C-alpha cells in the first residue's frame, strides 16, 4: 500500500495536435522520487507528454493530475532549439535566472545568491566561462548552462527533454552524475532519452511509448527485445482519414 500520493498520474490521457492523438490513452502513475526514462521512436509522443505535464498543452481527453504541485515546483528543460542563443546574455546571468523562485522579478541579487550561482556553475564545470556570452559556447557547454540553471531552481519535479542530444560523452557523464544526485535528493526526474544503453545503465524505471504506452515499469522488464521491436515498427504519421476514437472521456487537469 503506498503511503503517499504519487507525483504525477495520468488517467486515460490523450494528447495531440489538431485532433490527431500524439499520446493515446495513457494511464499510470509516476511515484515521488522516481527516476523515469521515457523512450520510443520519433514522433512517439515523448516530448508531447512532457509538455502536457508542464502545462503547455491541454489534453484532448482524459486527465493529468499533479497532486497539488505548483507549476513553479516543476523544472523543465525543453529541446534546446527553442532558446535564442544569439541573445547577448552572459553565462552567469543566464544561470542566475534559476534563482527566480527566490528573487522574483524585482528582487535583489545579494552575495549569497551570487555564491549559489557559482556553486551551480562549479557543479557543471563552467566557472571559467561565467563571463562569456552564451552564443560563444558549444552545444555541450550550453547544455551544461541549462543544467546549472535547473540546479538552482531547486524543483521537486524535473523534466528533461532529450538532454544529451548533440553533447559529448564527457559532458554526458557529468550530467548523469547530476541527475543521480537529484534522484538521491528525492526529486522526481523524468527524462526523454534515445540512448538505450544509457537508460539501462542509469535509469531504474522506463516508459516505452509508441503513442500508446507499450510498457511501463522497471527498466529490465520494459526494454526487452520484443518490446523494442514493436516500438521500432511504430508508424509516426497521422492518418488524415482516421475516424473518431471509440474510447473517450472529458478532459480535465487537476
Amino acid at each position, binding site marked *: 500500500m503506498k503511503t503517499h500520493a504519487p507525483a504525477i498520474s495520468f488517467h486515460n490521457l490523450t494528447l495531440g495536435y489538431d485532433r490527431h492523438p500524439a499520446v493515446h490513452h495513457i494511464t499510470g502513475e509516476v511515484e515521488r522520487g522516481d527516476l523515469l526514462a521515457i523512450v520510443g521512436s520519433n514522433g512517439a509522443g515523448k516530448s508531447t507528454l512532457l509538455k502536457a505535464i*508542464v*502545462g*503547455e498543452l491541454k489534453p484532448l481527453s482524459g486527465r493529468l493530475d499533479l497532486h497539488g504541485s505548483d*507549476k*513553479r515546483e*516543476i*523544472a*523543465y528543460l*525543453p529541446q534546446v532549439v*527553442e*532558446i*535564442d542563443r544569439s*541573445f*547577448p*546574455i*552572459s553565462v552567469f*546571468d*543566464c544561470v542566475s*535566472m534559476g534563482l*527566480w*523562485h527566490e528573487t*522574483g*522579478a*524585482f528582487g535583489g541579487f545579494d552575495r549569497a545568491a551570487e555564491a549559489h550561482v557559482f556553486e551551480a556553475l562549479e557543479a557543471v564545470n563552467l566557472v571559467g566561462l561565467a563571463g562569456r*556570452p552564451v552564443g560563444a559556447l558549444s552545444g555541450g557547454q550550453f547544455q551544461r548552462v541549462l543544467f546549472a*540553471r535547473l540546479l538552482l*531552481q531547486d524543483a521537486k519535479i524535473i523534466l528533461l527533454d532529450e538532454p544529451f542530444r548533440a553533447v559529448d560523452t564527457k559532458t554526458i557523464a557529468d550530467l548523469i552524475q547530476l541527475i543521480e544526485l537529484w534522484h538521491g535528493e528525492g526529486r522526481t526526474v523524468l527524462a526523454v532519452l534515445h540512448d538505450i544503453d544509457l537508460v539501462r545503465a542509469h535509469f531504474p524505471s522506463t516508459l516505452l511509448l509508441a503513442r500508446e504506452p507499450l510498457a511501463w515499469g522497471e527498466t529490465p522488464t520494459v526494454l526487452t527485445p520484443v518490446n523494442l521491436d514493436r516500438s521500432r515498427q511504430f508508424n509516426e504519421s497521422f492518418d488524415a482519414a482516421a475516424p473518431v476514437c471509440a474510447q473517450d472521456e472529458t478532459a480535465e487537469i487537476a
Partner: protein
Amino acid sequence: MIDALVQPFIEFAFMRRALVGSLAISLTAPPIGVLLMLRRMSLMGDAMGHAILPGAAIGYLLAGLSLFAMSLGGFAAGLAVAMAAGLVARSTVIREDASLAGFYLLSLSLGVMLVSIRGSNVDLLHVLFGSVLALDDAALLLVAAIASVSLVTLAVIYRPLVLECFDPHFLRSVSRWSSPTHLIFLVLVVLNLVAGFQALGTLMAVGIMLLPAISARFWADDAAGMIGVSMVAAFASSLIGLLFSYYVNVPTGPAVILACGAFYLASMLVGIRGGVLWRLMPAKHLEA
C-alpha cells in the same frame, strides 16, 4: 573650434531646445530600440508610424485639427495595434512580426478610409508630425515626461523583460509576469514612438530608436552594455546632426539620422565585437 561647436546653442533658443529634446529622446528611445532589435521587431517603429493613422483620423473627425485630440487618438490606435499583435502572437501560431504586420495594415487602411470620409485632403499625419526645430514647451515637457516614465519602468521590469526576449518559455514556467511584462513593454514602445513622432517627426523618432541600438551590437556583448552604447551614440548623433544642419544648411531630421547611420557603418567596420575589419586582420591567438 570649440567656439564653433558651442556658439549656435548660445545664440539661439531653438537650438538649445532641440538639444534638450534630443537628449531626452536619446535616453529613452535607444534602450527600447535595443530590446526591439533583440526581439527581431526592428521594423515595428515604421509600422507604428502608419498604424496610428485611424486614431489621428478619429481625433480629427471629432475635434478638428486639435493636436491634442489627434495625438491621443494616435496613441490609442497604436496601443490597440500593438496589444492586438502581442496577444495574437502569444496565443496563436502567428509570430510577432507577422502579427504586427497584419494589424498595422488593417489599421492603416481603416485610417485612410476614415480620412477620405471627411472629404478634406489635409495630410493628417503631416500635421501630426513635428520637427525637432519646433519644440515648444508642451512638446518638450511631453518628451521629458515620457523619457522619465520609460526609464523608470524599464529599470523596474528589466529582468523579466530580458528573460522574455531570451527564453519566454522559462519565464512563463517560473513567473506570472510574462504577459504583463510583454504588454507593458508594448505600451512603452507606442508611447515613445507617438511622443517622438509629435516632437521630432517620424524619421527622427524611429531612427533614434533603432540605428544606435543596431550599431551597439558591434560594441557590447550584453544587453546592458548595448543600451549604454546606444544612448551615447544617439545623443552624439543628435548633436552632430544639429550642428551639421546649422552649418551646412540641410534639413535637421535627416542630418541626425545620417549621423546615426555613419556611426552604424563605422561600427560595422571597426566595432570591437564582430567588426568586419577586425575579422579581416585577426590578432594573434592566445595561449589558452
